[in-house]
């Protein structure tokens, strides 16, 4: 049975998925002689025309350096850049736009917190708590600060299904814990971590919490005040926005107390050779000329996503996930890795006789783009005793018919590899 015989209604809120697809020029092309099926959205998602237009309008009409110029273009660029910050604030419901710091992405946001917030607070023997399903971006910065301070990285184990073990967490968090840094959604497995429970326990223990939201924010409504986290990090390029721009949300009181991380222009008020005074939030953390077009593109992406409604997006993606899980489970010799009951639209899998890399290559010749490898989560792969997985990750512009194409391509791979 496939989508053609199923008469599914593909609808995100009031909009049909076929009309949404028309917003994304890149989707309408042939790859290796087949219509592109793009299922690598967890790595990076695609851009609607309105985002591309916002960026090109900016370069065509409004580009200048921001903040210090008195001329018109500089004023326009500044307004647009700061306007984008306000879009972000609203999207994540931060209390004020001072709490929204532009970074190059999730990775830089986490490094900023590691170096500026955590490192000065650490004593030898202090502990940083992460989980076993983290992306390398939420592992390596902590290892760095541990190396420099004598602090210790503690890892909450995961279960076979790919869930963070809450009981183990309760026994790991303690008086020496100085930070809990958790993925909101796992990129390798799709697990949605019930971060609310972890945050509540951390609050009780007086432990600050950073959430790596890179994979959560494209699939759900994120409200940082309701979550009650201290830091939230994400990248624009997984949210239909450009690469090279991302966000660190931080609680104002914490950000105020943190020293600047990088020095340079924009982050200062006055400079003399004797003494430099620093700018206010959020600019204190934004040294140098930022990715202005990137922020504007991100703002446009958030408006676009809001027009569809994150709740509607989440609901449709859950339908895709359910269908993909069902259809993939029927493929002989295929095993899904990561079977938590609550997942984002990500399916990681291995097959009995075909290495994920061969699958990736063969699917590509059928026009189907998936990711294969360790997904920057090598400890997750070691946990399951596998070198790599194949991962199909979905966005709201994917269709049921595309899932059928994925399944057909997998059957083709089985034929090729005998």
């Amino acid at each position, binding site marked *: 049975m496939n989508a053609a015989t199923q008469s599914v209604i593909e609808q995100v809120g009031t909009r049909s998925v076929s009309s949404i697809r028309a917003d994304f020029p890149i989707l309408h092309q042939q790859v290796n002689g087949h219509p592109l099926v793009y299922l690598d959205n967890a790595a990076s998602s695609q851009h609607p025309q309105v985002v591309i237009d916002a960026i090109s309008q900016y370069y065509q009409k409004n580009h200048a350096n921001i903040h210090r110029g008195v001329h018109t273009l500089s004023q326009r660029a500044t307004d647009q850049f700061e306007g984008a910050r306000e879009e972000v604030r609203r999207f994540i419901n931060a209390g004020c736009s001072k709490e929204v710091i532009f970074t190059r992405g999730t990775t830089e946001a986490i490094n900023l917190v590691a170096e500026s917030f955590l490192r000065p607070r650490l004593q030898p023997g202090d502990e940083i708590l992460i989980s076993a399903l983290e992306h390398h971006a939420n592992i390596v910065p902590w290892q760095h600060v541990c190396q420099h301070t004598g602090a210790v990285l503690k890892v909450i184990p995961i279960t076979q299904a790919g869930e963070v073990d809450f009981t183990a967490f309760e026994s790991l968090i303690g008086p020496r814990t100085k930070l809990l840094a958790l993925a909101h959604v796992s990129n390798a497995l799709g697990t949605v971590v019930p971060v609310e429970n972890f945050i509540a326990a951390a609050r009780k223990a007086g432990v600050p919490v950073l959430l790596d939201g890179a994979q959560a924010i494209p699939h759900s409504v994120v409200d940082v005040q309701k979550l009650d986290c201290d830091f939230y990090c994400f990248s624009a390029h997984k949210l239909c926005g450009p690469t090279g721009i991302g966000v660190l949300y931080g609680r104002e009181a914490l950000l105020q107390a943190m020293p600047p991380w990088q020095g340079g222009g924009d982050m200062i008020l006055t400079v003399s050779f004797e003494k430099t005074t620093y700018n206010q939030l959020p600019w204190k953390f934004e040294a140098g000329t930022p990715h202005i077009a990137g922020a504007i593109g991100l703002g446009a992406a958030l408006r676009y996503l809001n027009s569809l409604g994150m709740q509607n997006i989440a609901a449709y993606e859950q339908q895709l996930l359910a269908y993909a899980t069902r259809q993939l489970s029927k493929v002989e010799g295929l095993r899904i890795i990561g079977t938590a009951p609550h997942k984002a639209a990500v399916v990681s899998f291995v097959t009995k006789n075909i290495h994920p890399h061969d699958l990736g*290559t*063969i699917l590509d010749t059928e026009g189907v783009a998936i990711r294969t490898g360790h997904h920057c989560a090598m400890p997750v792969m070691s946990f399951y005793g596998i070198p790599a997985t194949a991962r199909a990750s979905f966005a709201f512009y994917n269709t049921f018919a595309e899932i059928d194409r994925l399944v057909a391509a997998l059957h083709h791979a089985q034929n090729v590899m005998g």
Partner: protein
Amino acid sequence: MDLKDLYRDVIVDHNKNPRNFGRLEPADLHADGHNPLCGDQLSVTVNMAGDRIADIRFDGSGCAISVASASLMTEAVRGKTLTEFASLHARVHELLTQHDSSIDPVSLGKLGALSGVREFPARVKCASLCWHTLQAALQHETNAISTE
């Protein structure tokens, strides 16, 4: 880009039934190779007779290209001197990486089946891992080598 150029029958066969699979114990020489990007992991053990490769085995896990390449390599290098190995390695490397290579794949025997790999740049490392690993073993480098 034709898939059948990459997954030729010889490759599919050597992936399913790798030759010289296992370990020589004891072995004169040994090296481990690792391709962190794909997680391919293989080890090569060699026994020498003078400067000739008298016997060779490989084991490990990886994609079809890396397994078949290693299997084909073990067949091709058995009995070769170190000098002959170096020249074969150079020719295979050129076959895998250079589009304008003048090397006739047929002249490489079964190894010629790897000529399709160069059309798939992401997969070149898979095919070359075993060769780098064997070279390391022959140079008495017992440390793990990596393609990164």
